[in-house]
């Protein structure tokens, strides 16, 4: 084992993945079902969220209240997040019924759950920064939940400035990183094959 950090990082990253695994142009023949659409649809909705979020970011948090174009941008952001969660939940259920953790894919499942939770937090902070009555009410209600487990002392739902920074700067990066981790795990292990009749192959080995 090399003592060079650079060598170790190269071996753990670039040398661990073949280009054709990261960007495949073929898939196993069994990858042929409507359920596979929802994974890529979730990522596509995430791309739309980033795009419409950047649009809103460029103009500032209160822009959309007094601008028709701004209101449309906000609507695009809202409907993108609604679609994002619909796709993600269907994707999650699909993976459950496929027992997609088989074949040492537990880390892929866990990374998906972490992505789901990070999405909940990111969406929640988005609702906090609408700068309208809904955001005011959500903040005052949610603070009790966070305060009740000690989190509110560090994440103050009533502090709009903190919520803006979390939603616009930090959480998209965190969520994006988790999504990349999730996709790399899928590419590394390949798409889980159908559940076979052979009972010895069942489980999560």
């Amino acid at each position, binding site marked *: 084992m090399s003592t060079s950090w650079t060598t170790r990082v190269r071996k753990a990253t670039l040398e661990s993945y073949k280009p054709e695994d990261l960007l495949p*142009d*073929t*898939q*196993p*023949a*069994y*990858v042929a*079902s409507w359920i596979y659409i929802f994974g*890529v649809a979730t990522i*596509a*909705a995430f791309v739309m969220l980033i*795009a419409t979020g950047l649009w809103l970011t460029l103009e500032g948090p209160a822009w959309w209240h007094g601008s028709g174009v701004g*209101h449309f941008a*906000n*609507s*695009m952001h*809202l*409907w993108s997040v609604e679609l994002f*969660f619909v796709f993600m939940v269907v994707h999650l259920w699909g993976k*459950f*019924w*496929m*027992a997609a*953790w*088989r*074949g*040492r894919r*537990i880390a892929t*499942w*866990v990374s998906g*759950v972490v992505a789901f*939770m990070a999405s*909940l937090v990111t969406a*929640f902070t988005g609702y906090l920064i*609408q*700068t*309208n*009555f*809904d955001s*005011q009410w959500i903040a*005052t209600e*949610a603070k009790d*939940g966070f*305060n*009740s487990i*000690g989190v509110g*002392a560090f994440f*103050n739902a*009533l*502090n*709009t400035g*903190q919520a803006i920074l979390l939603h616009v700067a930090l959480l998209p990066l965190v969520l994006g990183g988790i999504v990349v981790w999730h996709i790399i795990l899928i590419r590394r292990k*390949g*798409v889980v*094959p*159908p*559940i*076979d009749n052979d009972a010895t*192959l*069942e489980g999560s080995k």
Partner: protein
Amino acid sequence: MTMKVDPSVKWSGPTRPYDLIKELAVAVLVIGLLAAGLSFLFSSPDEKAVTLKSWAQTNPVDFAQTATGELAGTTTSASYGPPYNKAASGQHFGILKLQDWSGVRIPINPAKSFVLNPLASYNDVAGQDAVVTWNAATADQQTAWATGYADALGKAKDATAVADPSNLYGPVPTLITSLLNMAKGGALDGSLLTSDSTLPTNFTKPLLFLADSEGYFAAKAEEQHLGGGQWGVMNETGSWPGQSWLWLFSFWYQVDPFKSSDNADTLVMLLMGLFTLLLALVPVLPVIRKIPYKIPIHRLIWKDWYNKKL
């Protein structure tokens, strides 16, 4: 008989052509058009934000009663506990006192923060004198004045002030009248927003004060079906979809023992934390991980494979 498949071994069987980049590009285009279409058809809600000014102008009676409650120490904020003050120890679960242990990291004394400090810096001599009188009194005297005036306002029902010819309530009537005038003019919003920083990005104080209002803030939320008993956390103003993915959070608040518990928030948050952990552990949970084998929905998902069409 289907082909035996070991899920841990890299697939070496038949494949089909696949264009990952094209698939993603088409998906982004389709989802973008779908979001644009939904936005064009349904738009998005935008119920205007409320302020201390709109509260004082719309429901001055509720404002006066709530402000008096801040002085009497009877509002939610005044009796909250961490992270705002030490009026209570907060919620807990058994010996787990996370709220108490987090400490007072956002110190707020509602009487001082919402009433006395703003008036002390407001250009109203009567109000400033009333603050001086209040500060010179003992705590017991202050409580007696404020609770007495709160009772009087409650009995008067639709009044923002009650005459006090016998001086039973000390400076409290003047304090409340001055604060009401300050709020109606909009100065109280600015005062609370800039009390800790000249750059107003932190709405903790005005929102905590507003949240103590039952006749204005909470009533408006109930009108918009946002109340806690109305699955409010997952709702949106008007008829738009809100955070429906929080349905399980909202659900627990609708049923006992959570609904009637003084520690409902702690119980629900910990329960949801446990469920999150269980979701992550599905692959190793003895019964749950076998469900996909017992209920063969996978036969539908991979029907072509099982029918040996591939």
